[in-house]
């Protein structure tokens, strides 16, 4: 009897073993390394090293540049998430109503999905180039003294614009399939009760889309935090005056460019804690309001 039970329980472990191995090798082990390294001051080549307790953390939190990056990351993530969700939802609702040439619209809107963030950044760079950029010239021609090389608002505008443009298509695909999953009968029943399409949308369609919206919100915040790295790197590089530097980009600058392993490890541990906290908040407080 016991033997049977034993056999029963190994097989599931075998099935999840590859997944566990991947998590252990690509997450737990490096994360452990980062935590270990974050307590050390070590020369880049690993030839001399000191255990310094929390010095790297104190230096990180006390660094004006880190605080600036933390603020920008917060504002940037909020803007990118809100705008790319909002615009995608609007486009999805409109595209869902189109009858003639629907697939053309949909394909066109999904196109940008295939573009990698660094490529999107390079394209943006060309459009905003001070000497040859069409958008740069356009904004200056309409009376906006646009100069993203010196003005931090303009630089923020550039990176938000590119990050949102790149992300709208992903959100659009999910919203569109979410909308198509809402049964016609529900809409038809709502039409009998309420004439205003706007009100119908907010009281019927939007709540029914909530699971999709919640999922996309989690995905978008992660995108804004981590994946926009390529966009920042190829456009502003954190300039002017560090005003468009994000936390992830700073980890890269200090660790990979500047060879300060202890400092950048401490920064990435702090970042890990922030993202963990955000995820807990999202699932604890926002997911409760979502009805599946």
């Amino acid at each position, binding site marked *: 009897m016991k033997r049977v039970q034993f056999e029963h329980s190994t097989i599931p472990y075998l099935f999840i073993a590859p997944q566990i191995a991947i998590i252990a090798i690509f997450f737990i082990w490096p994360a452990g390394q980062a935590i270990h390294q974050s307590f050390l*001051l070590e020369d880049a080549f690993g030839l001399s090293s000191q255990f310094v307790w929390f010095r790297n953390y104190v230096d990180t939190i006390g660094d004006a540049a880190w605080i600036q990056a933390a603020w920008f990351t917060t504002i940037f993530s909020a803007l990118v998430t809100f705008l790319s969700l909002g615009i995608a939802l609007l486009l999805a609702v409109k595209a869902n109503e189109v009858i003639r040439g629907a697939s053309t619209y949909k394909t066109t809107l999904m196109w940008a999905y295939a573009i990698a963030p660094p490529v999107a950044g390079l394209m943006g760079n060309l459009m905003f180039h001070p000497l040859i950029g069409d958008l740069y010239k356009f904004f200056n021609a309409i009376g906006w003294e646009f100069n993203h090389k010196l003005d931090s608002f303009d630089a923020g505008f550039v990176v938000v614009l590119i990050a949102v443009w790149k992300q709208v298509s992903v959100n659009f695909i999910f919203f569109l399939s979410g909308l198509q999953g809402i049964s016609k009968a529900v809409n038809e029943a709502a039409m009998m009760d309420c004439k205003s399409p706007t009100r119908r949308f907010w009281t019927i369609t939007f709540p029914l889309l909530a699971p999709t919206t919640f999922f996309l919100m989690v995905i978008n915040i992660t995108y804004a935090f981590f994946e926009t790295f390529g966009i920042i790197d190829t456009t502003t590089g954190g300039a002017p005056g560090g005003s468009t530097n994000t936390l992830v980009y700073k980890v890269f600058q200090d660790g990979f460019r500047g060879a300060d392993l202890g400092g950048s490890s401490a920064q990435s541990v702090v970042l890990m804690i922030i993202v963990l906290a955000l995820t807990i908040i999202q699932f604890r407080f926002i997911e409760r309001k979502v009805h599946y």
Partner: protein
Amino acid sequence: MKKLIMKTILAAGIAAIAMPVTAKTELQWWHAMGGRLGEVVDEIATNYNASQSEYEIIPTYKGGYEDTMTAGIAAFRAKQQPHVLQIFDAGAATIINAPGATIPVADLMAEHGKGFNSNDYIEGVRNFYADSAGKMIGMPFNSSTPLLYYNKDAFAAAGVTNPPATWEEFEAIAPKLKAAGYTALAQSHSPWILSENFHSRHNIQLSTGNNGYDSTDVKILYNNDHMKMHWGKMKEWLDAGHYGFFGRAWGDNQDAFVQKKVAMWMGSSGSFGGLKKSTDFEFGTTFLPYWKSIIDEPKSTFIGGAALFAMSGKSDAEYKGVADFFAYMTNNENQVFWHKETGYVPITTAAYEMAKAEGYYNESPDAEIGILQLSQPGGEWTKGYRLGYYVQIREVMYKKYDDIFSGKSSVEKAFSEMESESNALLERFAATYK
């Protein structure tokens, strides 16, 4: 038949296994020379491999300067380091301070009978990658120095005959250039050209501890009156339309010169080859301007670029090969070849004399300006600097200069923040070696 095929395969296999025993000693060389520069590097390697039968140097392009340094560091930590690693000026403190990461080039050459005399190297090159006693640690490889390029057509249109030797002269001609439709000046590297070399040109101390050569426990001295005066002027010039700022990227500022938006551009002595190809106007090359109000006779500038380091942890036989390759690379023929092909300066006096004797500077006088500037009299503070976490310090400098230009900070505030943030980084670096 089948047996025969099997035998052939087996024989081939044995041959393949046996091959490396008789093969040349392989020497890995990781570098940061992209594009045309990379092609020249490959050519030097191919020529070297053909010139002898004992060693084979294998150059590998690893990306930009920072990428190459990071790749080298990661490889070293995994005990997979290349024999030769190219490290740029701002990374010099990182590799030289790491105890035993590299074999000093002076020792390497002497031990393997190649002879070494640092006086063979030209003044501005000799000390940059040396220790405080003057012993060379890294072999200077691609060396350049900042220069001023000027558009002769623009100068003629504005009625200006000579390029400015001093910043005082610059202030006098800038309005004339503006009247002729040009922004007077742009430049491509604020920390290198207008901070580090600003100190060298005016013979001003850059940090305590003998510009960082004597110790890691140092404080930066950028927050001085001369720097604040100069950057206050830069902001005035920007506002008056005499200085054009096209962002941090090197190329964007150079493009402004190529596209005739600006009449003068400060870049590298190695830039003239590229400018020759991309410009459709006649331009001239001249020394970096200085402030007459600070110094009467300007001093030499120091080099930028990178050096080659022999990484530790290799066998004696391999080091013999590295020494042999270094000797080959720095011989006169190769230095002159490198100089002509890339625009980087020759690093030895003998190679410079050879290029001169060949009449190279008669056909392209611009190529000589960098060496002439590096050969100007040196002063107490012209040999270079050795500062830890300097990549991050340059980042701080870029930020503070942005803040001055955008009006976010006063010059006073920007330099005081630059000082405290840089010192915090230096303090962290020093604490690593306690």
